[in-house]
């Protein structure tokens, strides 16, 4: 079967967007300026109903993308933050043992059979993000953040959930999504995700934006900034990214830098200003030294 994820009774598309342009303009409305590739891929994830795996360096707006989609779709954002050691009980569901015990003590004169059927009911089920997203009746965006931080077992769990959009709780039976969530997985590629998971997803790499796009992002996030200064900031950041640094500055850092410059009251980029504020965009001492040397700054 080629189109495994597409079978089943639920509607395949999430149906939030009508066209690529629609994606771009509505995301822009929330302040998320999407590159054409981002807009196209989001549209496809919506249309084909497939999870979207977003990779790229930190600070380019992977998580923001999920939030922006949720905002324009008027959907609820359910977030699963992955970390080392996140498990089924944290990702999917667990039983509320304390409440179950209370229930058992409360109903002393019941037979065991009655109690048993009772304490494994909906009331005692604690829904974690994955189950919450699947059971949700309203439009939902499921964000699985930093998937690469989770252990391999969780990936297996995700595979099952994302291919069929259903979850089996042994005591309750299978719960199938009535309304398919829009799923975004993010990864920093600190661990290689499995081929199987990648195959289930649409792949999107968000890199550093084109100069023009980044300029617009800066102008929209830092409203007070002068156009020429924004352009200079973006140019310097572009030059820094072309250097061989331990950590290239991300978009978030570009915006931070622009804000800092504005706060410092700098209306043009001078050598002194750059030298004094390089620490805002570069996070390693050696990077600062490399950059200062290549930009021809006096010793920092």
């Amino acid at each position, binding site marked *: 079967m080629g189109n495994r994820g597409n079978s089943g009774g639920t509607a395949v598309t999430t149906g939030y967007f009508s066209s690529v342009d629609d994606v771009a303009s509505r995301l822009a409305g929330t302040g998320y300026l999407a590159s*054409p590739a981002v807009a196209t*891929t989001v549209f496809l994830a919506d*249309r084909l109903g497939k999870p979207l795996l977003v990779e790229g360096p930190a600070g380019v707006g992977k998580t923001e993308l999920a939030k922006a989609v949720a905002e324009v779709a008027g959907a609820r954002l359910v977030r699963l933050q992955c970390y080392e050691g996140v498990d089924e009980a944290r990702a999917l569901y667990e039983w509320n043992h304390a409440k179950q015990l209370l229930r058992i003590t409360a109903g002393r004169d019941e037979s065991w059979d009655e109690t048993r059927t009772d304490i494994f009911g909906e009331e005692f089920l604690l829904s974690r993000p994955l189950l919450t997203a699947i059971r949700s009746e309203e439009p939902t965006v499921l964000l699985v953040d930093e998937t690469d931080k989770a252990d391999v077992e969780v990936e297996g769990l995700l595979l099952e959930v994302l291919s069929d959009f259903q979850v089996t709780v042994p005591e309750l039976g299978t719960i199938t999504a009535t309304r398919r969530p829009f799923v975004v997985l993010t990864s920093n*590629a600190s661990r290689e995700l499995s081929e199987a998971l990648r195959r289930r997803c649409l792949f999107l790499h968000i890199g550093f934006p084109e100069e023009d796009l980044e300029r617009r992002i800066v102008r929209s996030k830092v409203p007070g900034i002068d156009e*020429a200064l924004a352009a200079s900031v973006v140019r*310097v950041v*572009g030059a820094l990214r072309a250097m061989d640094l331990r950590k290239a500055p991300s978009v978030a850092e570009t915006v931070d830098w622009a804000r800092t410059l504005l706060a410092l009251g700098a209306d043009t980029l001078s*050598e002194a200003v750059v030298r004094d504020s390089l620490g805002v965009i570069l996070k390693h001492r050696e990077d600062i030294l490399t950059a200062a040397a290549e930009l021809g700054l006096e010793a920092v």
Partner: protein
Amino acid sequence: MTAAPQEVAATAPREVTARLTGLVGALRAHGLGIGTGETVDAGLALEAVGFDDPERMRAALAATLLHGEAQRRVFDRVFDLYFPPSEGRPQEPGPRTGEDPAADAARLRDRLAAALAGGDDAALNLLAREAVGGLGGYGASPGSDGWSSHRTLSRLRPETLLARVRALREGGGAAEPEFADRLTDDEIRRRIEDFRERVRTEARRRVAERQGRDRVARRAVAATPDRVDFLLAGRAQLDELRRTVRPLARRLATRLAARRRRAARGEIDLRRTLRRSLSTGGVPVRPVLRRRRPGRPELVLLCDVSGSVAGFAQFTMLLVRALHDQFGRVRVFAFVNRVDEVTGLVARGGADPAGLGERILAEATVTGWHGQSDYGTALGEFAERYADALGPRTVVFVLGDARTNHSDPNPAALKRIADRARRVYWLNPEQPALWSTGDSAAHAYAELVDMRPCRNARQLAELIGRLLPV
């Protein structure tokens, strides 16, 4: 299969279906694992975004067919062949024959300088097409035999336009006498390189039209960097490979750490569990887990840095260096026919990876009376001088093709090294079919230590991840 493929075929133009399958075939030939399901998705995706905008089609196919950013370059090149951006363009600017090609080149250079100054994408694409059409043809009449980007670029010489582009930009009213201006030259250089790439793309496309896409897509498109053969990699490819060192090291480090963590969970130590159970009347209440010795492996790299093997050795040195906190200790030795320790040079090599090889050759004593590699002498010298580097916790990686230039391979020295170290692995960048042909002593060494072929970065990463002791 379900009805989906037929649906795609029915709604998308047949031509597109054929191209899509051709594209997938070419990508598979380059080692991208693409299943039928993904091909079907790609068809559906194309249908969803429409066929008007090539960049959307590119994004749609990339989203459905790719699994990682490393595959992107191969994909882009193959895509340009199967879905050329010129499609739907009214007419092809044909080669202007009969005129003076030098004058043609001069005119093109003028327009190119203007387009570079303005950063005008559409104009640059058009110029790339015209340049290949006008200057890149070869054969009896221009273009009769083929198109060459090399020929185009050597006539057009875009890299010499730097000063003119700078003058145009400064004259064009964009007067900003400030800090960012000192970046101008670098930006122009990047744009020029970008234009050169456009020319290459265009030349490939024209060749593909003549010779058939499938053939060109399989042969003329470079492999993903991690699959480039160490021994065949050119300078540019090695540079690109070096840029992958850090991300690769990070991935390897998490993999090694995960393995270590799993291993540290340990097994039940039955003897100590039972002994502790004495206090609870023989009931083993608390199991005792076998304790793991902490201690990370010590690593010794012994690298042939001569000639063609040097690229492989350098890449590996940098990778190991980037992984240094995974090991108790890393020592790196380089040799051609004499051995010298280069640990310090490699440690500093992170700042200037490209110059590492030259610095090793310049600053370390790796050659004696001649410049040819001599494994026998080098191994012997290592076993003698640096025996202290080896111990029961040391894992040795020997990197080299085991080509001795017809001198004595001296397997006894390798045997001595193997006896002192915990494990010795020999990574050979040649394919096994070539081992022991000519002056290669590969099999003589392979009898003593574990020799494995390691031809590209992907294999290297896999080997390091697997071979290192926990």
